[in-house]
């Protein structure tokens, strides 16, 4: 068994900023998750007409001038909002913070598609004259645009990185932050994931061509992980960023500690472009547990990745059975059933929405689970109504993505 790490290698979450289709701060997001409040609505996208999507309504001008919004990207605005909210929530004296020691690590599924589609549409109105292609296209589409906009907005001169990790990206951002803090590269990290994906028609069209785009006459019932009547993915936008610090630094400033990241793992399926692999997913879960020095029975809540595609749900269910057996704990819930698939933000949002369980002892549900798919066969799923567990100490967050990228983060209550 691994030794407990020295305190300077223990990394804690001390501030949270988020925007989700059903809440623009942790308190509202959590309230929506406990109330069964969906954030999925009809949404009009270029060329395709009406689709369903998770749409955020945060105030972009809370932390940006109108000119900054115009100059940048939606992913940038989401990042700026969440980063500022996280710093405000952390109680850190930002004016006195050495910003050369702050790192920004933001996971994204993709970046640049929105701007490229917009520019092609724009030049189509000029007979494809490329002289009207925007000079803003390059700074808007470089992969580091979202975290870069955060540094510009907040005067951060430490490192910034976008972590391209498909739909495992939210966890990947957090993991990068943990590693950089342990390496003493930074003293404070702002990390998580963001998504602007609903503003590209291509992601909807591609899922549609794949036969994996959800449709339902009632938008709130469209995303149905583990349910026999699922019809595919609901694309969402959103962002979830948190401040992470080394434990002694957080204690020294008497910070509120939302939880400690005690374990993480990432691996690759090496088996298919789009189809997941339960064996590799189970290995990823096992590696995270081993690093955390935890047994499967120590986990209270598994925040599942399931996206409401047949193959995805079934493979993750198989991975969870391999990793956890058929015990009553951990219970398993799912956030996408409420908000859709927030892509790069998914892993972060899904973890952050579960963290209040350390205080209230409640596992929020997986909604829209009316006819459980027998091929998923998970007895521990929290179906449709929240479950009062009494006490929650450990949450394990799954996040998997295309090209076979898997990520797992385990957060433990800090007491």
């Amino acid at each position: 068994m691994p030794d407990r790490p020295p305190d300077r290698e223990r990394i804690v979450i001390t501030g949270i900023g988020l925007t989700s289709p059903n809440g623009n701060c942790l308190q509202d997001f959590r309230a929506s998750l406990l109330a069964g409040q969906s954030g999925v609505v009809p949404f009009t996208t270029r060329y395709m007409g009406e689709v369903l999507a998770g749409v955020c309504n945060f105030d972009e001008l809370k932390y940006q001038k109108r000119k900054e919004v115009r100059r940048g990207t939606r992913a940038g605005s989401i990042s700026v909002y969440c980063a500022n909210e996280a710093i405000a929530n952390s109680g850190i004296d930002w004016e006195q913070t050495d910003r050369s020691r702050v790192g920004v690590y933001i996971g994204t599924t993709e970046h640049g598609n929105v701007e490229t589609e917009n520019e092609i549409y724009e030049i189509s109105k000029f007979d494809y004259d490329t002289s009207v292609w925007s000079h803003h296209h390059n700074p808007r589409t470089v992969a580091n645009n979202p975290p870069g906009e955060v540094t510009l907005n907040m005067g951060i001169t430490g490192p910034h990185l976008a972590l391209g990790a498909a739909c495992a990206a939210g966890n990947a951002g957090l993991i990068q932050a943990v590693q950089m803090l342990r390496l003493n590269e930074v003293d404070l990290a702002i990390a998580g994931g963001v998504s602007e994906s609903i503003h590209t028609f291509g992601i909807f069209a591609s899922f549609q061509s794949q036969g994996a785009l959800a449709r339902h006459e009632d938008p709130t019932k469209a995303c149905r992980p583990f349910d026999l009547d699922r019809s595919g993915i609901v694309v969402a936008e959103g962002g979830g960023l948190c401040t992470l610090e080394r434990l002694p630094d957080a204690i020294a400033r008497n910070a509120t500690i939302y939880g400690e990241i005690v374990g993480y793992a990432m691996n690759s399926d090496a088996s298919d472009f789009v189809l997941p692999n339960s064996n590799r997913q189970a290995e990823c879960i096992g590696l995270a547990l081993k690093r955390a020095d935890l047994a499967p029975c120590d986990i209270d809540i598994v925040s599942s990745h399931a996206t409401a595609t047949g193959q995805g749900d079934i493979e993750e269910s198989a991975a969870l059975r391999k990793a956890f057996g058929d015990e009553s704990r951990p219970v398993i819930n799912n956030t996408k059933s409420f908000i859709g698939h927030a892509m790069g933000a998914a892993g972060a949002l899904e973890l952050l929405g579960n963290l209040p369980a350390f205080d209230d002892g409640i596992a929020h549900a997986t909604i829209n689970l009316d006819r459980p798919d027998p091929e998923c066969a998970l007895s521990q799923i929290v179906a449709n109504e929240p479950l009062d567990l009494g006490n929650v100490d450990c949450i394990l967050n799954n996040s998997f993505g295309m090209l076979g990228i898997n990520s797992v983060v385990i957060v433990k209550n800090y007491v």
Partner: protein
Amino acid sequence: MNPDEIRLVILDILASIAPDEDLSNLDDDVAFREQMELDSMDFLDIVMELRKRYRVQIPEDEYIQLGTMSSTVEYLVPMLRDVQSLA
């Protein structure tokens, strides 16, 4: 378009690229950059908008003509003389 109409067009472009600025007291004979937060990318937006709206191609070595409102209007008058105002 006459000079007054061209001035309104430039004001409209400036309002779109610098939406936080108050343009009501713009001095036509003082450089835009001395009165507003305009960087080189914003400046290129002025060139781009003129290209999109009126198909005006401004050579790079003539960008200097777009320094103030007065010089901009004066520079554009011969180019836009035959263009109908949209206002």
